[in-house]
């Protein structure tokens, strides 16, 4: 530990839409840095000792639930696994994720967006015989490599960083976005999902789908899980272009 702990300066966006007369503003808080401090730890300290009204979302604080994405010094990332030590000048500016409905302060309604996305792409295995399976019997075999490939695409935690980093989404409010494409790529790869390419085309074969993507690839740059967005978007686009 260094001799003297730093004092971090947090500039945080504050606005509670449910409070009459409240106006959006930036508020500065000072926090004494502790070893291994993350933005999650610092925000909790601010809430517990300085301002109990501060709103932000966390569940797992281990980078797996996807609740805590926010804009940290201009870049979307998961707050729970961002160490304050990464910021050399000790100044950290926090804004809510754009592209989502604001709940208050740093809290946004990613849940509503993701639920609508799931319904739109029907993010489940489509197999009309799925419910007739006899679960007493040996399961359907799957190549171990295929299982691993599906898992690689299923690592998405729906944090919304890709949506907030997407310029196309800014221009097209109904743009499906990388999170939707990643799920579609996952189901298209899965031999258990019996949907045909034509059926997938109905979901994403337009400008609000995979053809609308301007390939600026903010999704690829800011995905906290390092998912292969670029490759999968290119793959889906080619697959869809071959249909008609």
């Amino acid at each position, binding site marked *: 530990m260094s001799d003297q702990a730093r004092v971090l300066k947090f500039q945080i966006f504050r606005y*509670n839409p449910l409070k009459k007369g409240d106006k959006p503003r930036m508020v500065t808080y000072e926090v004494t840095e502790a070893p291994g401090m993350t933005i999650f730890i610092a925000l909790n300290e601010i809430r517990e000792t300085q301002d109990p*009204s501060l709103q932000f*979302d966390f569940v797992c604080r281990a*980078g797996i639930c996807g609740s805590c994405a926010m804009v940290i010094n201009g870049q979307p990332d998961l707050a729970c696994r961002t160490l304050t030590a990464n910021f050399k000048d000790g100044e950290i500016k926090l804004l809510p994720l754009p592209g989502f409905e604001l709940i208050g302060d740093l809290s946004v309604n990613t849940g509503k967006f*993701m639920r609508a996305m799931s319904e739109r792409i029907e993010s489940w295995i489509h197999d009309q015989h799925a419910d007739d399976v006899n679960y007493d019997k040996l399961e359907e075999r799957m190549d171990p490599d295929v299982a691993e490939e599906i898992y690689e695409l299923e690592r998405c935690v729906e944090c919304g960083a890709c949506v907030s980093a997407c310029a196309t989404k800014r221009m097209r409010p109904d743009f499906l976005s990388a999170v939707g494409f990643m799920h579609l790529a996952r189901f298209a790869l899965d031999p258990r999902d019996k949907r045909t390419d034509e059926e997938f085309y109905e979901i994403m074969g337009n400008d609000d789908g995979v053809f609308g993507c301007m390939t600026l690839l903010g999704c690829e740059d800011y995905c906290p899980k390092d998912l292969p967005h670029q490759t999968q978007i290119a793959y889906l686009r080619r697959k869809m272009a071959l249909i008609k």
Partner: protein
Amino acid sequence: MKVIYTDSLVIGGGLAGLRVAIAAMQRGYDTIVLSLIPAKRSHSAAAQGGMQASLGACVKGEGDDEDVHFGDTVKGSDWGCDQDVARMFVNTAPKAIRQLAAWGVPWSRVRGGDREVIINGEKVTITENHEAHGLITARDFGGTKKWRTCFTSDGTGHTMLYAMDNKAIELGTEHMRKGKGVPSPYGDHLWLDITLLGRKHIEKNLREVKEICEYFLGIDPVKEYIPVRPTQHYSMGGVRTNATGESPTLKGLFSAGEAACWDMHGFNRLGGNSVAETVVAGMLVGEFVADYCAANPLKVSTATIAHFLKKEENKITDLLVRDFGENPFELKAQMQKIMMDKVGIFRNGPDLEQAVEELTVLNQRARNIALRNRISSSNPELVEAIRVPKMIKLAQCVAYGALLRTESRGAHAREDYPERNDRDWLRRTLTTWKDDGSDLPDISYEDLDVMKMEMPPGSRGYGVDNIILHPDSEKRMAEIEEIKKTNSAADRLELQQLLNPTPIPEKFKGKNERIGRGYK
């Protein structure tokens, strides 16, 4: 007052809650899932280890079946589990895994041929059968005779939760001691060495662990030791239910998963059995919930609803108008410190007594919480003010129960009572609160009946045996031997039925098939 009607209301959108909801929906009942967060953000996602089920497809799982899983579960629980429940559970777990496979979980699969693994700190080569190639594989998770923990690379809970929530969406609802520690600013820690596993294994199967090390600690676990600390990780107890998941004291209230004391874990839960419980309990209890819906028309007085609504409204109003009082964040921090220091892994009378006293004081103080931010919506301090008094009461249940239990069993290790005392303590601790204003919970006990056990208390086969025997243990053991002798022609499944005829729902009664063994 606006009343929302539904056939079944599920509180909590983790794996257990979602699975119950799916069962009720599949039987045609209106279901609402109430969750504080979007279901896919539930903490089930963080369960990385895996789910136990005796599929026996991988070579280290050969010879596994429901009986071996049952034995491991009962021993793990230190004979504290409900053996009817453990039986229902082990018989249904293979079906649960296979159902989840059909719903989209990309379970890791057997790869025929040689592979290198680490067993007891040594590198060995094992050869998987080619006949099993492509079936669901399993790994070791400690405390089991066979490798039985099914997994998806490093993200089991995540993939299970996503498949489960997607299925629910498809069905169209879901609304939403103090030892040799190394000092650090967050408390003493130990070093965990996983470098022996090698880069390939760590990067693939322990990637989430690796990410945590890199992002949170700035270390590379392939090369460096990981600092670790013990922490409260799982609650073996919960809302007491009978084997169908229903509360014995409140009709129509069911509980499943970590929230419940269904009681398949007893005094210590096996790794991989917690995630398995969520899904398997969800399946079984879900059927009983649907049965309940079928048998009981909704009949509720609006006056009762109004009474409880008013009561809760008053509590919130009191919090919002009080000028001076306690800070809920401070109360919580004090409660956490008491539990960590005095009700931890190794326990003793004097520490527990102090903990109970100090927690009682916190409970009293928690009746006088005041807010600094006095608004009624989107207010994290108000949320804390509502929750912390309940957390303190739960901490009191744990600490007081631990103080009174003068033995060591499972995860309850008393330095002053190191022996497992079956004679006096083969019983469950039940805690109840008479009313909101009580200082301490009432404690009562529920005896476990050795004479009904399929597997009477014995040695766990690991750790130190230090047991005061129950007088019925030998009697029951002899009785079982007698049953076995008189039914020498019975196969293991028939024998099991004789020893412990457990009521499993018709849907899940079938025998489970295994590779190389069929339905035997």
